[in-house]
């Protein structure tokens, strides 16, 4: 079988197991959609200005939850499922077969990206039907690139974070502690309006705000822009590269305990 065939076959089995795992399916899939409904219902009617466009807060949340979906599907989901698989001895076992390690991880990543795309599309359709949100036609290339760079970045970081998680019991705490605070201060759950300077610095260092703002650039481009946010994308790519480097160097196929 070709390498690509091997990877796709692995994706198929990963997908089967994913939907049968109630925790994975709920937290990765249902959670962002729940947040989408709650946030848009609670705060949707107010107005907000993004990149010179006057939009409703509901449409802000379409982009925010789209970004959140990519982050849970890639970062949280990959980090948790890999740590659990590692503790169960699944990774060790796979490593003992002729399947190359990279093919196993690539399959996990592709599966995560497929879930992320599915979630983003649901957000988009939800926004279009209920809140007249729209993806500007000129932004479609930027939308695809932003999604791809964001998904790759957070997948790499998800793999990297497993190297500091000692065991599956600690995984939810460490994974959530590293991502939840950032989600609150990075223009995802709450629109950022004149944040204090230190919060601004935090946002500029970590990748979450770069991703949410790159998404906003896609949906609400400044007049005449094609929606590409070059600086944000560059920072995301750098974080992704760092994550990949850590993962390649320190990834463990055996339980750490």
């Amino acid at each position, binding site marked *: 079988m070709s390498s690509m065939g091997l990877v796709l*076959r692995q994706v198929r*089995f990963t997908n089967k197991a994913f939907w*049968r795992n109630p925790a994975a399916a709920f937290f990765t899939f249902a959670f962002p959609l729940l947040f989408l409904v709650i946030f848009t219902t609670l705060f949707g009617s107010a107005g907000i200005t993004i990149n010179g466009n006057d939009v409703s807060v509901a449409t802000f949340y379409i982009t925010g939850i789209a970004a959140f979906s990519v982050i849970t599907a890639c970062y949280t989901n990959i980090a948790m499922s890999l740590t659990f698989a590692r503790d169960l*001895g*699944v990774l*060790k*076992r796979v490593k003992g077969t002729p399947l190359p390690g990279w093919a196993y991880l690539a399959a996990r990543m592709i599966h995560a990206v497929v879930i992320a795309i599915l979630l983003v599309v649901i957000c988009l359709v939800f926004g279009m039907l209920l809140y007249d949100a729209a993806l500007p036609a000129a932004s479609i290339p930027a939308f695809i690139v932003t999604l791809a760079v964001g998904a790759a970045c957070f997948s790499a970081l998800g793999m990297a974070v497993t190297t500091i998680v000692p065991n599956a019991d600690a995984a939810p705490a460490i994974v959530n502690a590293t991502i939840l605070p950032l989600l609150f201060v990075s223009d995802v759950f709450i629109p950022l309006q004149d944040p204090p300077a230190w919060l601004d610095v935090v946002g500029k260092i970590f990748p979450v705000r770069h991703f949410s703002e790159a998404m906003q650039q896609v949906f609400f481009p400044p007049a005449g822009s094609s929606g590409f946010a070059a600086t944000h994308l560059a920072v995301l790519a750098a974080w992704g590269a760092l994550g990949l480097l850590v993962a390649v160097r320190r990834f463990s196929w055996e339980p750490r305990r």
Partner: protein
Amino acid sequence: MVLQSTGMDPYLTVAETLELFGGYYPSPRSPEEIMELVGLTEKADVRVTKLSGGQQRRLDVGVGLAGDPDLLFLDEPTTGFDPGARRSAWDMIKNLAATGKTIFLTTHFMDEAQYLADRVAIIAGGRIIAEGPPETLAGRDSATTIIRFKPGDGVALPGPVMATAREAGELLEFTTANPVHFLHELTGWALAHKVALEGLEVSRPSLEDVYLELTRAGDPDETEIEEEVS
């Protein structure tokens, strides 16, 4: 290679797990065949998480067979099993050996080694201290035989026999290097005098006795039996 830990996705079924692992190898054995061999045919569509411990262990072995290997390593395959599950695991291993595979397994159970193995090696402190077929390991076959029975009332044993007797609780115990001759004499005498020889027992040192004898010097925690079935 079948390790002590399980290492399978809990949400896939038995058949799916075997299909998944088979796909990693160039000439896999079919899931149906493997399920037959390890006795999980009825559990084909049951998820791994719903299997009992013994069934998971058998699936473990099944996954080890997915690539149709000629040599299979089993690391303590029946540790933690109840006697019933152990018996069916043994049958499974016998089945596998009958298909012409070489099986290398480690165990702490002497009866397991005795029942399954063609060749046994005892490892203590990281070194093989004895090796051979279980029947003859460390001179088991040439060791003296122990004969025990409950002495009857009233009739005295013939003098020469009585001379070698030892008392072991209620029983009389004899050790002899020539059990055929000894038993012939003993039973001939018993028939002639109508003595029942209650609780008559003829035994040779078990594999366990050999093991304890051999490892007495070493640290018992570091010893392990390796055996080979082919």
